[in-house]
């Protein structure tokens, strides 16, 4: 760690990768981590069996009773970990998309990625019939293919933000209609199960889901760190970026693939969860008062948002539980409305 550039800023260097840290950013990230830890602990204590805090601590030191150990470590902890890692992936993905499109609405949800992933998964579960791995692959292929189609349709001497968004909305509409059709043809139980997955849910996930997801995120994040300088430059606009020696379209495509892969990781495990990728980067940017999109605060915000949403989803109509996506889609709609209103006020 070296060099104080100006008050409140500090350059951190790890090997060949270096980045500038603002004091305000540190405070915000610290606060978000505190929220994650606090809400995470709450999530571990709540549920059908209440577990008091001292027993919870005992479980982590391995001294609790067998049943407490099982409830905390095998049932509840994986869900919390998935919410946190998934939130990080979604926050980063949203940050990438919003940087590339230079638009607060450019997020994987809006450009139809989720609808496509759901289509892929539905085709596998309802039509082809397949196991969990097949469903996951179906979701990935569907999501990636949709992102590609939207990107190509939006292409006309480069891809611009608004066209990408409206074309994403149009493609989503087609896919949603098709998804409705597939669900209509299914029997009621399969349709309800598919609809729950289609909303995005963290229920019934265990360590077998945590492991592949963590590996994927652990591979993608360093790649993103290597690309982060280019991402920052793209935010200045295509002209300036290419004047600075960035191969604009190629960098954008690479970043887009990274963003899609991060979202796909979450979708594969939990179904399409909207709103987190949309809102996390914007909320983080407001809190840090940063000029552009910042990756680390976006990731922290994503983790906090998804974890809190999941706790709300589990508790709001208890004893019944909602899929987390039903909470996030509502929050997302309200957030979008707020965004439209505040943007209007500024002009």
């Amino acid at each position: 760690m070296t060099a104080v550039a100006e008050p409140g800023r500090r350059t951190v260097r790890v090997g060949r990768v270096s980045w500038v840290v603002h004091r305000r950013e540190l405070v915000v990230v610290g606060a978000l981590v505190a929220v994650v830890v606090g809400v995470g602990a709450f999530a571990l204590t709540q549920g059908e069996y209440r577990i008091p805090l001292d027993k919870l601590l005992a479980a982590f030191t391995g001294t609790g009773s067998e049943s407490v150990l099982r409830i905390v470590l095998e049932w509840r902890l994986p869900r919390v970990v998935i919410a946190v890692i998934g939130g990080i992936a979604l926050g980063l993905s949203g940050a990438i998309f919003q940087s590339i499109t230079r638009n607060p609405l450019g997020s994987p949800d809006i450009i139809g990625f989720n609808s496509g992933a759901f289509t892929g998964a539905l085709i596998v579960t309802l039509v082809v019939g397949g196991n969990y791995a097949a469903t996951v692959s179906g979701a990935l292929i569907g999501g990636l293919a949709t992102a590609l189609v939207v990107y190509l349709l939006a292409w006309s001497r480069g891809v611009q933000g608004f066209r990408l968004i409206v074309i994403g909305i149009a493609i989503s509409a087609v896919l949603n209609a098709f998804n409705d059709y597939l669900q209509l043809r299914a029997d009621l139980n399969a349709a309800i199960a598919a609809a729950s997955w289609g909303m995005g849910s963290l229920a019934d996930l265990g360590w077998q889901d945590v492991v592949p997801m963590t590996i994927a995120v652990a591979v993608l994040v360093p790649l993103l760190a290597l690309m982060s300088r280019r991402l920052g430059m793209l935010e200045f606009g295509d002209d300036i970026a290419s004047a600075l020696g960035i191969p604009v379209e190629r960098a954008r495509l690479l970043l887009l693939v990274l963003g899609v892969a991060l979202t796909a990781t979450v979708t594969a495990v939990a179904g399409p969860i909207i709103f987190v990728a949309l809102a996390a980067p914007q909320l983080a940017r407001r809190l840090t008062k940063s000029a552009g999109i910042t990756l680390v605060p976006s990731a922290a915000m994503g983790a906090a948002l998804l974890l809190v949403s999941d706790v709300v989803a589990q508790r709001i109509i208890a004893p019944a539980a909602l899929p987390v996506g039903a909470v996030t889609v509502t929050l997302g709609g309200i957030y979008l409305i707020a965004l439209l209103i505040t943007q209007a006020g500024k002009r």
Partner: protein
Amino acid sequence: MSADLDSLRLPTAAARAREASTGIARSTASRWLLLVAALVVLATIAVGSLFIGSGTISAAEVWRALSQGGDDTNAILVTGFRLPRMLLAIGVGAALGLAGAMMQAVTRNPLADPGILGVNAGAYIAVVLAVAIAGTADLSSYVWWSFAGAGLASVIVYVIGSRGRAGATPVRLVLAGVALSAALQGVTFAITIRNPDIFDKIRFWQAGSLQNRQMDVFLGVLPFLIVGVVLALVVSRSLNAVALGDDLATSLGTKVLRTRVLSVVAITLLCGSATAAAGPIAFLGLMSPYLARAIVGPDQRWVLPFTMVFAPIIFLLSDLVGRVAVPGEMPVGIVTAFVGAPLLIVLIRRSKAQGL
């Protein structure tokens, strides 16, 4: 967020003066001729739809059922199901087309559509609430809930989308519609997922379908459709002035606010009754006025009647395709989405706005 989108607006003041005589059919005579021709096409398709169904009934049987009635299975299928379905397709199609045309004129936004702007989502959640809370069971009593939801949603989306100095730009309105639909979607889901019965009832209605609608559904919504259509045609002249922009319209003596309010009432009646009868149907309100404008130019006094004929043609054809294309029927709302969404993409791609 908006300045670069002006080329997506419907033509205003100067542009309209230039475009007053655009469209394929420019003379009054050719427009009348085309309108009559379109009506003949509509009648042909409508009659044809009585002869084509998911089951096979011979043409002679259909004819006998229509002319003599009777209470054997075939006669009941034709007069009890196919006939009301055809009438409903015409009514719902005309209603959604008109509603779309009026929304496009009032918001000066060629992307406006009851489905895209969240009006359908409003009607949808109202109907879900009706089923879940009030225990409403039959389609014809959905209609009042549907009105309430449609009216509320259209006002909310317009208010959100038109805030700020830039006013209601096309993309802002579309986003406001998407946002409201999203917010409502989560709540609707929370209600339906807890009750498999409701979920089952709603999933068929939700996709937008004309299947198994009998005469009572058509007769139930007919009065509202008629009032909506009359209201729409009455304000069509003022809509021309509103399309010039608020300032110019006011200086020409048009009561802009009154036109807006009447339009919203008409849109609510049309969308609400259409949605109650057939479920949420997207993109029909986008396609039909677009086609009408391509033929007669921007004059609303022509756009509205042409839309009213084109929309049922598209809707009947979509319903026929859904009936015939796959075994077990594909709901018509799904077919219209498949046809309409590509048009939205073409519109966006063709817009000259470089900043878009």
